C-alpha cells in the first residue's frame, strides 16, 4: 500500500483538561466548560472561539451513564457555536481519539481551518456494578453472554500472556508502582499518590482507629495483600484496574499554514492510525491487539518514523497487563519483553523510554470518552515542556505519541506528535 499522507498538515495550538475524579454535583457541560476555558487561556497569541469551524466530541455512553444522548448540540449550545456543525464520535474508550482523528481529517481535506476536538464522560452517578455493566456493553456480545466483564477480558489475556512468556502477577506490580510514582507529579490526577503514600495512609488510619497496624515489607508486599489489594477478576486486582472517573479534555487544531497566528510553539501531527480488532474468541493470538498493530503501522508509515524515534508515549493502561501488551504491539519492545522493560525501570519518567508520564489511566483517571484527547493533551504539554514536575528530562524532546484502546481492543488508535 502506498504511503498515505495528509493533504495538508495539522497543528495543535491549545489544550485543556479538567482535574479528573468523581464529581456527582457537576455534569459534562461543567467539565467541558472547564477544559475549554483552560484551552482558550493556553493559546499563546489569543483566540476567538467564534472562529471555530467545527467541533468533534467523543463520548462513549452518557446515554447509559446519565440517561442523555446526542451530546453534540449540547456542546454547541454551551459554547455559543450554534448553528455550526458538531459531531459526536463513539468508539468506547477510544471515542475522543477518533474525534481527534476526524478533526485532523477535516482540516487536512481543506474543508475547515480551525477545529475543536475533545471528549467527556460522567461515570460517577452509577454504582460500581452498573458501571461494570455499562462498560461491558463495549465488549463483544459473546463475551457479555458468557459473563465476562471488562476486567475479566483483560484478566483472561493476562493468563494467556503469563502462560506464553512464563511470568506471573508479580510482573504487573511493576507497572502499578511505576504509574503511581508519576501520579503525585500530576496535579490533575484522580489519585495523586504513590503506592508508598497509600501504604502510609493505611498505616496512619489503622493507628488512629487503634487497629492492628499493617506491616508490609515493601510496595510489592502491599500489592500481594488481598485485603489491601482485593481481587476484581483474576489476575486483575484493585491496583491493576483504572478507576471510575468523570472529566473532560479538549485540543484546538488548526491548519499548518495558520498555526503561527496562534502560537510560536505549535505541535504538529506527524502520523496517526486507527485499527479494528476481533473479539476474544476470534483472535488469532490472545497476547496481542491486531487493532493496535494496524494503527501503529499506519501512523509509522504516515510519519516516516519508527518505534525507536518515539521518545515517550502514553499507552492505554486501563488494566496493568494492557500497558505491557501495548508496548510490545507498538514495537517499543519485542513480544514477550514488555514485562522485562518495566521491571528494569526503562519506562520510568527518568528512564530511556518513559511510558504514561501522566500517571496513566490507572492513577490520572479514565473518564472513557475524554481519555483519547486527555492522552494527547499530555503529549502536547510534554512537547511544549510545560509538564512541571513530571516533565520528561530529555533536553531534546521532539517526538511523543499516544495509544488509545476502545472496548476490549475493538478500536485502537496511535497518534504521533512532533515539535519541528
Amino acid at each position, binding site marked *: 500500500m502506498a504511503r498515505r499522507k495528509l493533504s495538508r498538515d495539522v497543528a495543535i495550538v491549545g489544550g485543556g483538561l479538567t482535574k479528573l475524579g468523581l464529581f456527582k454535583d457537576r455534569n459534562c457541560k461543567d467539565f467541558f466548560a472547564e477544559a475549554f476555558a483552560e484551552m482558550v487561556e493556553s493559546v499563546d497569541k489569543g483566540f476567538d472561539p467564534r472562529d471555530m469551524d467545527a467541533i468533534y466530541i467523543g463520548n462513549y455512553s452518557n446515554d447509559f451513564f446519565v440517561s442523555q444522548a446526542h451530546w453534540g448540540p449540547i456542546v454547541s449550545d454551551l459554547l455559543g457555536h450554534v448553528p455550526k456543525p458538531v459531531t459526536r464520535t463513539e468508539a468506547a474508550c477510544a471515542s475522543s481519539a477518533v474525534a481527534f482523528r476526524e478533526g485532523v481529517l477535516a482540516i487536512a481535506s481543506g474543508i475547515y481551518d480551525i477545529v475543536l476536538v475533545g471528549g467527556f464522560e460522567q461515570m460517577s452517578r452509577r454504582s*460500581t*456494578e*452498573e458501571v*461494570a*455493566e455499562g462498560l*461491558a456493553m463495549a465488549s463483544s*456480545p*459473546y*463475551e*457479555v*453472554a*458468557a*459473563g*465476562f*466483564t471488562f*476486567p*475479566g*477480558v483483560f*484478566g*483472561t*489475556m*493476562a*493468563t*494467556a500472556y*503469563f*502462560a506464553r512468556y512464563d511470568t506471573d502477577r508479580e510482573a504487573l506490580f511493576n507497572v502499578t508502582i511505576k504509574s503511581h510514582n508519576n501520579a503525585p507529579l500530576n496535579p490533575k490526577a484522580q489519585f495523586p499518590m504513590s503506592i508508598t503514600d497509600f501504604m502510609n495512609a493505611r498505616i496512619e488510619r489503622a493507628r488512629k482507629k487503634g487497629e492492628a497496624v499493617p506491616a508490609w515489607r515493601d510496595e510489592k508486599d502491599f500489592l500481594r495483600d488481598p485485603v489491601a489489594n*482485593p*481481587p*476484581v*477478576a*483474576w*489476575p*486483575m486486582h484493585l491496583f491493576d484496574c483504572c478507576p471510575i472517573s468523570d472529566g473532560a479534555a479538549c485540543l484546538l487544531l488548526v491548519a499548518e499554514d495558520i498555526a503561527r497566528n496562534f502560537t510560536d510553539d505549535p505541535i504538529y501531527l506527524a502520523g496517526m492510525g486507527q485499527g479494528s480488532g476481533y*473479539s*476474544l*474468541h*476470534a*483472535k488469532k493470538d*490472545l497476547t496481542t491487539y491486531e487493532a493496535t498493530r494496524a494503527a501503529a503501522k499506519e501512523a509509522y508509515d504516515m510519519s516516516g518514523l519508527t518505534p525507536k524515534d518515539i521518545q515517550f508515549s502514553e499507552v492505554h493502561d486501563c488494566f496493568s497487563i494492557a500497558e505491557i501488551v501495548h508496548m510490545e504491539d507498538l514495537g517499543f519492545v519485542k513480544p514477550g519483553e514488555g514485562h522485562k522493560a518495566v521491571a528494569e525501570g526503562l519506562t520510568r519518567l527518568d528512564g530511556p523510554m518513559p511510558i504514561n508520564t501522566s500517571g496513566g489511566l490507572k492513577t490520572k483517571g479514565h473518564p472513557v470518552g475524554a481519555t483519547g484527547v486527555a492522552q494527547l493533551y499530555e503529549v502536547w504539554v510534554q512537547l511544549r515542556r510545560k509538564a512541571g514536575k513530571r516533565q520528561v528530562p530529555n533536553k531534546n524532546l521532539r517526538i511523543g505519541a499516544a495509544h488509545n484502546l476502545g472496548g476490549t481492543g475493538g478500536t485502537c488508535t496511535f497518534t504521533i506528535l512532533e515539535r519541528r
Partner: protein
Amino acid sequence: MGERPFNDTSYEQFINERKIMGSRCKKCGALALPPRPICVSCLGSDMEWVPFKGSGKLLAFTSIVVAPPNMIKEGFDRNHPYLVGVIGLDEGVKTVAQIVGMDAKKPEKIKVDTALKAEFLEKGAGPGKQTFLVFKP
C-alpha cells in the same frame, strides 16, 4: 437444517437443542463458531453447517469477583466468584464460555491447557429459560 441462516440466532437455537453448530466456508474450508454469513478468511459467503464435538483445552481464563448485574442475579458476588475463559476446541476454533467444576476461589491453582469438555447448562425458568454452553474438566 441447511435452511437456518448462519447467524447468532441460529447458533443459540442449536445450543437450546444441545448442539454446538458452526459454519464451514465451502470455498476455503475455514470454520467459524458462532457461524458467520461471510468468511473472514476468503470473504466467501457459501456456507454449510458443521457440528463441533465440544472437547478442547483451556487457553486463558479469569475468575470474576466483581460481577455484572446479570450474573449477580444468578447468585454470584464478591464472595461467590465464577470462572469464564477462552477454550480452544479440537477442531481449531476458539469459543468463550463459563467454566464450571473448578474452584473459582483458587484461580492460582488453575492451569492453562487443562482439557475441557462441553456441557449444557440451563439458566432461568419458564419463558426466560435459556441453555448455555459451558465447559468443565
